[in-house]
């Protein structure tokens, strides 16, 4: 047999269309199958996303990155004992474990305006990369606006609604949770922020407002903080958050 020619797996002729979208188009082919180059790129993106799902908060590093805020920091855990339980039992990720409940009961004191919460969610990586910058900027603006702040609460294996459990113990007028979002193939480091007025157990998601895709390549931290401040002012003015709090300033586009 003669020496075989290597298969041409160049991108398709219409690869100029890639200028219009980040979708995986004009990938080329061998036979009808995807070229190895593209197959490995896909696997790498998926690996990043999976690693992000199983990533953990590095509490000392996270605390160090929050030190500029000058606020006391306490860490708690949800009732989901490990990641596989967390993934299958979202209900447990919304509840504090007994030790954490006792800890927060002791913390409860004079009433405060705002409690900041940081939880791993579905990507601790996102939180480790973005939370410090957002919190430090946000605390500065909140103080300028004259609102009082509770200690920062860090949550391991937490879901969004754990802010209700925390709110039920610390009784802030408003709570904000920064949490890792479900990783996509193109973004494994997106952080979301949810804001709830008068948080307490039993609330549902229509009582919250959300800002998503917070990361340098998405919604940059400084812009995220501006949007959060808009929501904070509006929430205190209207004494509510959720579907009734509309984006009248076009700030939440």
């Amino acid at each position, binding site marked *: 047999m003669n020496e075989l020619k290597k298969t041409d797996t160049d991108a398709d002729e219409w690869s100029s269309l890639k200028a219009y*979208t980040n979708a995986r188009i004009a990938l080329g082919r061998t036979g*009808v199958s995807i070229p190895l180059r593209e197959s490995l790129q896909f696997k790498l993106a998926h690996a990043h*996303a999976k690693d992000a799902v199983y990533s953990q908060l590095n509490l000392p590093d996270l605390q160090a990155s929050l030190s500029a805020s000058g606020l006391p920091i306490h860490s708690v855990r949800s009732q989901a004992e490990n990641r596989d339980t967390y993934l299958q039992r979202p209900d447990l990720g919304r509840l504090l474990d007994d030790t954490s409940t006792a800890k927060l009961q002791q913390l409860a004191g004079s009433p405060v305006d705002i409690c900041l919460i940081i939880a791993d969610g579905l990507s601790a990586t996102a939180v480790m990369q973005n939370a410090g910058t957002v919190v430090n900027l946000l605390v500065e603006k909140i103080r300028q606006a004259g609102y009082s702040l509770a200690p920062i609460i860090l949550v391991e294996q937490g879901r969004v609604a754990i802010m209700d459990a925390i709110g039920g113990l610390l009784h802030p007028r408003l709570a904000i949770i920064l949490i890792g979002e479900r990783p996509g193939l193109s973004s494994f480091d997106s952080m979301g922020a949810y804001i709830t007025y008068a948080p307490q157990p039993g609330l549902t998601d229509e009582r919250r407002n959300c800002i998503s895709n917070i990361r340098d390549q998405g919604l940059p931290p400084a812009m995220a903080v501006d949007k959060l401040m808009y929501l904070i002012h509006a929430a205190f003015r209207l004494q509510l958050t959720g579907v009734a709090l509309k984006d009248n300033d076009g700030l939440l586009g």
Partner: protein
Amino acid sequence: MAYQCTISGFTYRFNDLKELLAKASPLRSGDVLAGITAESYEERVAAQMCLADLPLTTFLNEAVIPYETDDVTRLIIDTHNKLAFAPISHFTAGDLRDWLLSDEADAVTLQQLAPGLTPEMVAAVSKLMRNQDLILVAKKCEVVTRFRNTIGLRGHLSVRLQPNHPIDDMKGIAASMIDGLLYGSGDAMIGINPATDSPAATSRLLHMIDEIRERFAIPTQSCVLSHITTTVQLIQQQVPVDLVFQSIAGTEKANASFGVTLPILQEAYEAGLSLKRGTLGNNLMYFETGQGSALSSGANHNVDQQTCEVRAYAVARQYKPFLVNSVVGFIGPEYLFDGKQIIRAGLEDHFCGKLMGLPMGMDICYTNHAQADQDDMDTLLTILGVAGINFIMGVPGADDIMLNYQSTSFHDALYLRRVLDLRPAPEFGEWLLRQGIMDQQGNRLSDGSQKQFYSALLPA
């Protein structure tokens, strides 16, 4: 009414039909989350043995969700065709399983039987089946639908081209559309999930696809998956709406959480028909479903998620849909934890839908927090191809950059057509030939004839 089964001297008791169905269901995380699964492996088999002996008439006499409180139950009972049911009225669920696999059960018999089957009967029989049973019986079914082309013919596999873009950028969507068409996808439909539910944006997208479709005389249909009330509004404004989309579920309360009722569906169906845009047929509803949707809206009434799913098919079949798509792995690991559970659910949904008489397709997919990967999707893709699925998704590189999940790609569709010798919808296949995109054997061509096609759409 209580049911029981004795194994090695121990008697398992099941308080009612819904408990029996839930405990007979193969293990999945959503039923664990709902707290309704069997407590041991033995109890699950005991429930299956008990279910196998249950007369099918039981399903007509005992509703899993009360008739008085749920309009899906009322639909199921009120539309049950006793004449179609008569030939099997003496069967148990186990008898039905054995008969479905027998040589007596052929495509025509199964079509005649479909209106006599309630979703609960179909769910029950699926719980008694192994994966190969689900494949074999589904393959016997043939459900053919028509709008501008013909979907579901034996030996054919169609693809929904899904050219989503995170901000609905027209050129971005057009670029993915062209890529898909040049890879032979798009015969089931060109269907976009819009980033917002704005009527204006939806209308712009519909006009854009319609223009491309007309310009190149593509024998296919389009859909922008906005809420059904938005679509009805656009129909009234004479926007070119081909297929009418809605997500549906198997209980009244779950449908309410989607903002939809049976009268709204009927109104939308009639509105779609009024446009008379189908050239070969009038099937025009496009429904999406998925196990777990009822529980996720707190509307499952302690009925297991697979039974709830089949009840959604009873809703779908009222409106003679063009396509029904179970978006199987999209919902996440709290409902279907891993590849094994997603694959089982996919086979169940396809089988149950087909047996109910629906043109079933599937979004063979997973999210990044589920324990699944593209290898699992390859497995499910291949066995659904063997089972005769009507259509699958075609997403550029299997990576949906708007919805952030992984599905199947244009390449995946070509793989399946090649290994199983499947063809696109006949009208679309002829178009691919005329355009010089594919040859008779389904090989993709690169002879320069495509250039005119894509450069005409997006001049550099």
